[in-house]
């Protein structure tokens, strides 16, 4: 309560101050607010539980004050109590407070941040801190950051701090530097060249005092990465290599093996056509500011997934998650627009997208005949750089065709074939792998300006796991409002008693930067993944309210 009052007071004073400042042609206050609330009803058939509190609410609000080169802000967060399915072991996430506070000074060349901040070096292979509220991930740094533009095209960043761990900080100290040179901007003679080259390098070191009863562990763990980006006309090759010294941790079962990662993406594009080819190889690259941490806690880096991020409900049942202990992956994507005013293109053109991705294990061999792979306290295993093992983790093949037929009708048809290694990706043992075919038809019919009906028909066909699913959705939108009904039906469940309808109804109102949405219905148990991290979403039944506002 005291905190809320002090927050309100600070807010009001900020408001008054900025009103004053505004008159002096200066300061401004901006921010946002979001609240997610759920009322839980028990439903034993789908495994949904009720909670003692009846209702659980996650809320947060950001406030930032800016005047000239100076800005400062804070984030209020309240988990009263934390929604089910978010990381909250032993109630660690429940509470209310102001975990994020920062102040920043910046001018043309220099930016200094004190307090909390988020930062990424290169592709994030050795350093990425970010927040993803819908996953309950926030590994914000608390400390100092300096960004300096030495000269045009030459950028330097330095960070030091600890990472946020719920309402506290993790034990590890993180120090990092990153530099990038964009040669075409640095050397004026190349400014207009068709060939664009940039190179970057970073180094991150983590300090955590060694306190293990048996093993002698490194107090300091260093990681380095180098990247190169070459662009010539429509071609673009982006590559990064990272290396980390031995870092025994709970996640790699305390092995003393160094880690490596390589990421290459090559693309070509011109008007009407885009092609992407990418590969990734990762060996033992889990990197956290507490060697005992797990799941979404205290990650210093993030290995981007190679597969596509699925946007429809049924394909998202089996989401891919990066395996930092070792994986090889490859992808290919083609985007093509059949031109307007052709037989197949029609009046508006037709867009065809193809996606393919495949992920396998890396080849690991024993360090000695008598020592199993990844045995605690050993060098773990041997592996050649860029080795590829036999076991398939994941594969998806997608075709998607989007077409606007006329001013009224828009359709998006897609098909997907999926392989999902359930044991590896879900971290369980003995579950059968899933082979699925998924077909989706998404149709939007515009009745008049601002009034439209959207329907979705999705079918997932599989002999494994919970069998076949069908989903039908209808959504009516009128200016500022939308109304949705959908049924997600597990009609092919091998157990006839579990052929459940997950029926949902909802509506929402949007006005400017404000949005409010209310839904009632059942949600299936599953996994939700955003940006390389996943969380389990428990089955639920009940009423959900979502409010967001940007100001």
């Amino acid at each position, binding site marked *: 309560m005291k905190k809320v009052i002090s927050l309100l007071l600070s807010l*009001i004073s900020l408001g008054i101050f*900025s009103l004053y400042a*505004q008159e002096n042609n200066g300061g*401004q*206050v*901006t*921010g*946002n607010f979001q609240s997610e609330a759920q009322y839980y009803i028990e439903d034993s058939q789908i495994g949904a539980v009720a909670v003692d509190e009846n209702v659980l*609410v996650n*809320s947060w609000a*950001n406030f*930032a004050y*800016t005047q000239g080169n100076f*800005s400062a802000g804070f984030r209020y967060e*309240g988990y009263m109590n934390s929604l089910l399915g978010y990381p909250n072991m032993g109630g660690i996430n429940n509470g209310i407070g102001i975990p994020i506070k920062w102040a920043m000074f910046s001018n043309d060349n220099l930016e200094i941040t004190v307090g909390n901040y*988020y930062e*990424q070096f290169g592709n*994030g292979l050795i350093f990425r801190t*970010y927040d993803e509220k819908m996953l309950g991930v926030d590994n914000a740094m608390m400390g100092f950051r300096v960004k300096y533009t030495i000269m045009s095209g030459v*950028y330097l960043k330095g960070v030091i701090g600890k990472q946020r761990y719920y309402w506290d900080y993790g034990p590890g100290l993180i120090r990092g530097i990153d530099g*990038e040179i*964009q040669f075409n901007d640095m050397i004026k003679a190349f400014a207009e060249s068709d060939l*664009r080259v940039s190179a970057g390098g970073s180094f991150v070191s983590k300090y955590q005092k060694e306190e293990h009863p048996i093993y002698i562990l490194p107090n300091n763990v260093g990681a380095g990465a180098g990247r190169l980006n070459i662009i010539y006309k429509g071609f*673009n090759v982006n590559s990064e290599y990272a290396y980390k010294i031995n870092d025994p941790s709970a996640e790699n079962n305390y092995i003393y093996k160094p880690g490596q990662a390589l990421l290459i*993406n090559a*693309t*070509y*594009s011109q*008007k*009407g056509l*885009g*092609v992407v080819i990418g590969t990734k190889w990762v060996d033992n690259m889990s990197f956290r500011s507490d060697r005992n941490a797990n799941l979404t806690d205290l990650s210093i880096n993030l290995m*981007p*997934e190679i597969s*596509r*991020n699925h946007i429809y409900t049924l394909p998202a049942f089996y989401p891919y998650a990066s395996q930092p202990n070792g994986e090889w992956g490859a992808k290919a*994507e083609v*985007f*093509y*627009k059949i031109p307007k005013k052709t037989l197949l293109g029609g009046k*508006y053109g037709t*867009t065809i997208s193809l996606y393919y991705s495949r992920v396998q294990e890396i080849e690991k061999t024993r360090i000695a005949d008598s020592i199993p792979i990844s045995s605690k306290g050993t060098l773990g295993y041997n592996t050649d750089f860029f080795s590829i093992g036999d076991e398939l983790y994941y594969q998806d093949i997608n075709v998607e065709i989007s077409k606007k037929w006329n001013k009224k009708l*828009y359709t998006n048809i897609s098909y997907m074939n999926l392989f999902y290694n359930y044991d590896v990706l879900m971290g369980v043992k003995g579950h059968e792998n899933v082979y699925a075919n998924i077909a989706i038809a998404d149709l*939007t019919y*515009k009745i008049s*300006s*601002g009034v*439209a009906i959207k329907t979705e028909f999705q079918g997932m066909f599989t002999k494994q796991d919970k069998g076949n699913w069908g989903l039908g959705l209808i959504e009516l*939108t009128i*200016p*500022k409002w939308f109304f949705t009904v959908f049924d997600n039906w597990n009609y092919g469940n091998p157990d006839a008693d579990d052929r459940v309808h997950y029926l949902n109804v909802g509506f929402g109102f*949007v006005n*400017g*930067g404000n*949005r409010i949405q209310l839904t009632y219905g059942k949600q299936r148990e599953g996994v939700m993944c955003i*940006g390389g991290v996943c969380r389990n979403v428990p089955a639920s039944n009940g009423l959900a309210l979502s409010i*967001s*506002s*940007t*100001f």
Partner: protein
Amino acid sequence: MKKLFLILITGILCTTLFAQEVPSVQIKDLNGKTVNTKSIVENDGKPVLVAFFATWCKPCIKELTAFNEEYEDWAEETGVKIVAISTDNARSSSSVAPFVNARGWEFDVYLDANSDFKRAMNVANVPHTFLIDGNGKVVWQHTTYLEGDEDHTFEIIKKVAKGQPIK
């Protein structure tokens, strides 16, 4: 809960009082060049529409496709410039250029791979669109995309281009 609403209301009051300027954040263009967000919203005193999107966000793609169909007409009538900010992270940021070029989108697209600009603009979810007037002030914003929203967006752009009040 009551307290939350208090905060919300205070916040909304703040909205009406202050016109926001676009914060200074470093993001990258599709050629990997670092650019400051202040410079991308310059348009010789004409309005700029800043649209946050992601390649995995269906309503975002619908919105930008709709903008693209109208862009030529809108620009001719009001001088508006559209810039699209991709919030795709390292998973899909390298696919943004092929994705965008294949669709033939005419507007400038930038990469905000760790959501620095998104955070600085207090965007909760994509799609989220801001209209910047000729003086660099954020004068209007909109979250979510509902079918036909682009018509309303254009009405606002026309008013802002003429220097008329929005309401």
